């Protein structure tokens, strides 16, 4: 995990996003334990209140849940939920910035479409 202090995304959200990322890539499979607040706080050198805020966000979203006295675990169905959320953000996070930059550089819609095809087929 890597925290970017220059980012406009608050640190607690960065922590939540990166835990989601790790769940999505299968580093923390469903029903396994995620790192503790203590571990993340000392590892990332981030105030535990901030880490906890990020964790609580994931609890509220149903991505992880608390097992009393044991720790935080990945919920069943978490992967699907994260993927769904990411898909609905795809337009805002990727397509719009892509169009904006293309416009700035004077790339036409046709050229952009050709690039997408090239990216997909490798030609």
């Amino acid at each position, binding site marked *: 995990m890597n925290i970017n202090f220059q980012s406009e995304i608050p640190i607690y959200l960065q922590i939540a996003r990166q835990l989601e990322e790790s769940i999505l890539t299968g580093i923390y499979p469903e029903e396994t334990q995620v790192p503790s607040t203590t571990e993340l706080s000392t590892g990332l050198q*981030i105030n535990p209140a901030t880490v906890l805020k990020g964790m609580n966000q994931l609890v509220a979203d149903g991505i992880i849940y608390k097992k009393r006295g044991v720790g935080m675990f990945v919920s069943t169905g978490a992967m699907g939920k994260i993927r769904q959320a990411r898909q609905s953000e795809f337009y805002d996070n990727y397509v719009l910035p892509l169009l904006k930059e293309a416009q700035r550089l004077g790339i036409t819609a046709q050229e952009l479409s050709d690039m997408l095809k090239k990216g997909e087929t490798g030609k």
Partner: protein
Amino acid sequence: MSIQCEHLTKRFGSVAAVDDASVTLEREKIYGLLGRNGAGKSTLMGLLTDRIRPTAGTMTIDGKPLRDNVSRVYMMSEEPLYPESYKVRDLFRWTGEFYGGFDHVLAQRLCNEFNLDTKKKAAALSTGYRTIYKIIIALCVDADYIFLDEPVLGMDAGHREIFYKALLETYMARPRTFVVSTHLIEEVAGIIEDVIIIDQGKLLQTESVENLLHSGYNITGAIDAVDDYCRDQELIGYDIIGGIKTASILGKAENVPNGLTVTPLDLQKLFIRMTEHKEGTRYE
């Protein structure tokens, strides 16, 4: 549960090192105390730990006079608090006896991590290790409010990292209040929860880091364009590099014209701009 100080002033001759400062230090929080050289950080910490007597003002801890409860506060500073002709391990023991508690397990572990020989006399240690033994005492002493004045001065990057980790670990294991003054702002930006900014003896701001960073934004572009945009904005400060101006502004970015870029504030830049004494850039 807190330390409260009201209208605290300390004059040295005609100079007010701390000038009418009122602040509340809540329990179990990590604060960053930020200020330029000579801003009054050390004096403020000295006052809050009863090492320096105030010219005026009151200080209480949980509503009782601070002076009657000095064993609940501890300050680590560059100037030695101890007779340095003694061995480090004896200094550990005595601190524990005076304050009524000392985490000898953590102390031993940190001595190993830092590679500090506790059989040595404090005076025989190098500058870096004199800082280290004082840090270990500050992290292991059983006091409710720990003040660390420039704790990482003269420490290398590896040792600083051991310190930051140990600070967080002991804070989580036994939550208490830490007030850390440092010039290495970027290194502590994630560790501190609230920030206290002092400038020329006056407290400018006491705020959570998150709120502070979200209280404004930076705007970058050609000097004229930025000046135009800033005309009816609340300016914190600015810098100019190679004809490109970056201004820090309070509030939310709205109707930003093309050609100007909005970026988030970062603690170090914000601090510099708030405490820079350029015409018209003073943060009030």
